[in-house]
């Protein structure tokens, strides 16, 4: 059987399949439905220094082969995470990773510093790419200066594995990736959602409360594969690929484009056990094609 164990910037994973932030809660919500120990890493819901109520309803619109969302980083803040959620998730036998967001470099750094104190959290994923908040989020991720400013601030406050999640809503994602690599990121994950919009023509109104939202699901996969391919050629740090992965074949595309691991997001809504099925499917595909290890196909395109 092919070896699908992977190490990303020091994170040892049973397989290269992670669950994407905002689509898998804190893992606990899925515990009845999937064996969490068989997931390479679980990236928990975006956490900010202070609590956030998120955007008004409606926050979701189904679209062809995907969905738009404008949740807007609803969370109870890092203190609540440390005090109430961490005790419940610290013994889940997977890499429990916190997705960190903020509205200023200082915010991001302060939030990351709190997470740094938690023994069982081996990594954070820095969200500089949320399209659904007015301040911060994607504002940092769309310029090389903004991106490196946030990553430098967090790098000083955080000494474990630092993954930076990139936005596709930019002219050159490779330039942004290089800037966060230079600023001290250990890995990059991409893509966050693509900014989109949908209109209810009968009501003559946008279908989302803040008009625009982030598009995810199979509709974005070709864009994501292209971004991963460009970024993997531009940086030396590992690339984690995500965007519309619904099965093992989709995942294999990302590995060939240069991803060392993948995340599954929207797919969790369709099949709560998809991550484990995709991991098994990757192993089966490698066996069928006589590869001994997942590493043998990473970046072959």
């Amino acid at each position: 059987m092919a070896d699908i164990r992977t190490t990303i910037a020091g994170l040892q994973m049973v397989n290269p399949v992670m669950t994407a932030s905002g689509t898998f809660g804190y893992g606990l919500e899925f515990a009845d439905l999937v064996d969490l120990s068989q997931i390479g890493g679980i990236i928990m819901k975006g956490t900010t220094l202070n609590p956030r109520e998120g955007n008004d309803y409606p926050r979701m619109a189904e679209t062809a082969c995907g969905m738009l969302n404008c949740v807007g980083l609803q969370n109870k803040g890092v203190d609540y995470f440390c005090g109430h959620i961490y005790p419940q998730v610290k013994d889940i036998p997977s890499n429990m990773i916190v997705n960190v967001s903020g509205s200023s470099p200082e915010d991001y750094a302060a939030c990351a510093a709190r997470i740094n104190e938690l023994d069982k959290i081996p990594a954070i994923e820095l969200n500089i790419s949320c399209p659904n908040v007015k301040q911060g989020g994607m504002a940092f991720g769309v310029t090389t200066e903004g991106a490196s400013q946030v990553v430098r601030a967090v790098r000083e406050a955080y000494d474990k594995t630092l993954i930076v999640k990139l936005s596709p809503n930019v002219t050159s994602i490779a330039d942004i990736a290089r800037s966060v690599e230079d600023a001290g990121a250990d890995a990059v994950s991409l893509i966050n959602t693509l900014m989109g919009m949908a209109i209810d023509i009968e009501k003559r109104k946008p279908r989302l409360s803040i008009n625009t939202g982030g598009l995810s699901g199979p509709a974005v996969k070709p864009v994501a594969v292209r971004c991963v391919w460009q970024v993997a050629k531009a940086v030396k740090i590992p690339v984690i690929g995500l965007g519309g992965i619904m099965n093992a074949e989709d995942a294999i595309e990302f590995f060939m484009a240069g991803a060392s691991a993948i995340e599954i997001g929207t797919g969790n809504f369709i099949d709560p056990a998809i991550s484990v099925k995709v991991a098994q499917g990757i192993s089966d595909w490698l066996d069928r094609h006589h590869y001994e290890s997942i590493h043998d196909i990473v970046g072959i395109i």
Partner: protein
Amino acid sequence: MKQCKDLKIVAVEHPNDGYVLLKLTDAEQLPAIHAGQFVEIKVENSPQTFLRRPISVNFVDENRNELWLLIQVVGEGTRHLANLQLGDTLNVLFPLGNGFSQGVAGDKVLLIGGGVGIAPLLEYAKQLKQVGATPYLLLGGRSANNLLQLDIFRQFGEVYVTTEDGSMGEKGFVTNSSILQLFNSSTSPHRGGNAQRAEGVSFSRISCCGPKPMMMAVAKWAKEHQVKCEVSLENLMACGLGACLCCVEKTVKGNVCVCKEGPVFDIEELTWS
């Protein structure tokens, strides 16, 4: 415990063009389902239907190990479900959410349903009767076509009907029903028709499921008459598990997921004005 599995379709009934009743079973004993909980169905072979469809549990037949889903055909996804055949399987994520309040013996509960929102009230009426509570059913629809399963409802409690076009029962909305008018003025000398049978009833609670404007009208009525009231919301959902935070409703505790904290809420928790 939540499950995600293929259930087998043992009956497909079409009460009329607008609805399909699917009866599902499993080789294993179905999990305990609390009235008001829902399922998320995966719609296969329907490219426009990307997300699962949340559907309330209509009825559980414990003797036959059957789960019933009464589905109104409104779009491509539900049209697909209406075309399913006997022997097909359906991938179901269930049971989800919290249901209606559990009744106790002696409770008199008024269940108010509108349109396809009457579906979960059938199981609730059954469960209330099982614990010795008395359900009263006030069911409203645009027309008689929207009022299904009335014979089964009558096995569990008295049924009062309103239709907007007057094709069955009293003409108007549920909030115009004489059963509510009677409550409003129990000393009124004029009591006709249905209302007479409910004479003297004071309800422990109202449980309501239907279109939002109807539920808001019922909630307003309940507040005015100081009756406890709970409503079942159907906000647009993705995951059904409380993970994606898409289906939130504003409550006194902030935005909460309808799929996980609901779908049934006490109206005192909501910020409806």
